[in-house]
């Protein structure tokens, strides 16, 4: 698939004026055949999704109302007790803020970083291609590999301590909890994904019509004004895309937590997704873990709603 191929296919579609029925409008009437055809196309994907996803959600909610003893296979209905327990669980006073920390920090900072780097990489500089490739390297590495390597780097008396030591600093307790550990996690997560985001942004940036920028320049708009009022609206779909990827990705901190600290010390570096895994698969407390999973789902649902609203307000192009 190369440029000419693509052009050959795409061009006629754009050039040839469509033969239009006199009665046809932009949206033709939905006749029965059309519905049948549409539903038969949608059926495999949607039915599968609804069957598996629906079963899972109903089941997890049902489990969350029970106390489950996996060993003796006894299941007792306890109503909302598991949810009440979440409120009284001192661990959750750390887990929830940590989760929110990652979702907010990673989605906002990750998006800003991607835009900034894309703008930087969109410059005409000698050797820029090298940097463009370099930035994509972590994206090619699996999250697990990335976390394992970083685990080495931040281990006590590891590479990072060696580097800070060269500047005369004492070794730092990178993984011993508190904000420092959360920041380490955020860096690991963000460096892993920034490449993909930058590529998306870069593609969007390069599709900004040059004549628009030129016109603004002639009107005397400064660099920032041009960026703010022309570039940003033009690339807003890409910004939304990256923001969405970062939000979903921020829950993936799970792997980093599991491999680097196991949530410790105590639960200082734990997040909701890790707590679910820990309670369900390490402590065999299926009921409680399910109630946490329901909370996670509700939080994500709320987030989806918010982003959906944001899309309508901030995204410039939506051909829908």
């Amino acid at each position: 698939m190369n440029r000419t191929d693509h052009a050959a296919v795409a061009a006629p579609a754009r050039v040839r004026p469509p033969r239009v029925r006199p009665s046809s409008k932009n949206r033709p009437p939905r006749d029965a055949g059309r519905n049948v055809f549409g539903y038969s196309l949608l059926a495999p994907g949607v039915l599968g999704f609804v069957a598996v996803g629906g079963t899972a959600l109903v089941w997890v909610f049902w489990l969350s109302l029970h106390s489950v003893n996996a060993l003796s296979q006894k299941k007792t209905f306890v109503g909302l007790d598991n949810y009440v327990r979440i409120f009284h669980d001192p661990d959750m006073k750390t887990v929830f803020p940590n989760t929110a920390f990652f979702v907010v920090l990673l989605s906002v900072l990750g998006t800003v970083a991607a835009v900034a780097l894309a703008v930087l990489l969109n410059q005409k500089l000698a050797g820029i291609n090298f940097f463009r490739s370099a930035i994509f390297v972590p994206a090619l590495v699996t999250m697990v590999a990335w976390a394992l390597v970083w685990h080495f780097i931040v281990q006590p008396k590891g590479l990072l301590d060696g580097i800070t030591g060269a500047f005369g600093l004492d070794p730092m307790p990178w993984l011993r909890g508190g904000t420092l550990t959360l920041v380490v996690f955020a860096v690991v997560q963000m460096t892993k994904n920034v490449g993909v985001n930058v590529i998306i942004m870069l593609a969007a940036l390069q599709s900004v019509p040059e004549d628009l920028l030129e016109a603004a320049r002639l009107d005397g708009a400064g660099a920032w004004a041009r960026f703010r009022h022309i570039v940003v609206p033009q690339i807003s779909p890409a910004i939304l895309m990256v923001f969405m990827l970062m939000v979903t990705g921020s829950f993936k901190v799970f792997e980093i937590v599991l491999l680097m600290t196991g949530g410790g010390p105590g639960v200082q570096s734990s997040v909701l997704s890790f707590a679910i895994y820990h309670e369900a698969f390490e402590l065999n407390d299926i009921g409680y873990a399910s109630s946490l999973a329901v909370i996670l789902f509700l939080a994500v649902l709320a987030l989806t709603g918010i982003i959906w609203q944001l899309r309508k307000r901030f995204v410039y192009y939506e051909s829908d």
Partner: protein
Amino acid sequence: MRNLRSRMLAGAVAVAMLGALAACSSESGSDETPTSASGDASASTAAPSGSNGSGVELHMTVWTSDPDSLAMFDSIGKAFVEQQPAVSAVKFDSLTLDQLDTVITTGIQSGNPPDLSWLPVEKSLEYIHNDALVDLAPALKETNGYDFEDLVPRLQERWTVGDALYGVPFSTGALVMAFNKDLYEKAGIKSPDDLIAEGNWTWDSFREISKQLHDKLGVTGYVMNDFDYKNWTRLLPILFAYGASPWNDDATQCSADSPEFAKAIQLYHDMVYTDQSAPLPGQKVDFWGGQAGATTAFLGSMNNLKDATFKYDIVPTPAGPAGDTQALGQASIVVLAAGKNKDLATEFLAFLTNKANAETMAKFYPPTRESLLSAKVLVGRSTILTEDMVQPIVDATKETGKIFPVAVDDAKVADALNRSLDTNIWKDGVDIPDALTQVCADVQPLLK
């Protein structure tokens, strides 16, 4: 922009296609890959039991992947199949210890649990309380030539409820100390052997030589094997020496805030933060590679020394105010109550742990039969252990050894204890007795 994207993505498609291609080639080549004993686990899911019509297939989960011990189990399994036509095969599925609970509970859930399993002593009460295990005592007593009385009662304690016996320990190993003779020699300081000869083998004196070793050579003095600040049971040699335990005998009352516990923890804390002779949390130090003066590990782990490039010795762990005592880890073989072939499984267990087979297993795992508790049996054909090394350890096992404390809800209690110690204790500048009050506050609600 379209062109740009299509090109970029064309590259990505190439990645994917190459991947798919490689998948095909590696699939066809996979037959040559050596498979371990668990290699047929997937096949056995497809055909649950006895698909060849001649008897059932028994499954037993183990957490070793050592080919030699798996081969030994396989040959005992084959011998059993020959004498019991109702069983077509005994399969040993190997996994890791942290997978065990999930595997067993999933098995029960899907109606297809393993028939037998290894079970660590930490889980004994939890499984017994949930009626998950079969009482083996009647069957074992009836089995001809089993010699039930030969099982040392003190070492079966955690598996015994009244007359019932819910597991037969096959491995009761002490946490022992191994040390690197070369490093002590190089530093020109007393070694553990010297201290033992002086009759001064205590944790205090060990702390002192570890500090000297660190000060002179800059190496780590002492690293607890498999501890990583996540596994409190590895602290037991110190805790027991100070007469400390995290909870009382029937595991109803937290005793981690006792003065004894505080003293024991203080000793190790000082080694880490004051002397810097033990690794910091998260710091990786490899005793077996020659980076540390001494380690405490299970006797079985001493096989790690087979590739050692240094001279070493193995000794019992130091004594403390509570005298000379050894911490014993234990694992038993159990029959799961949810299994489909409980009677045959029990019969196999009786066969597996009879005198002759127990002696075979003793080459790999320290036994609990009186008749086998000798340095000679334990050393076996080992190239690492000698009878001189092992004799004091055997004596300790028989007389002064104490098995790990067990709580009913072990998974949660151990998790709470580990996490609480990690949060409150393992950092610089901690008031230990104060912090231990918090530890008990965290653990007590989970003790029943």
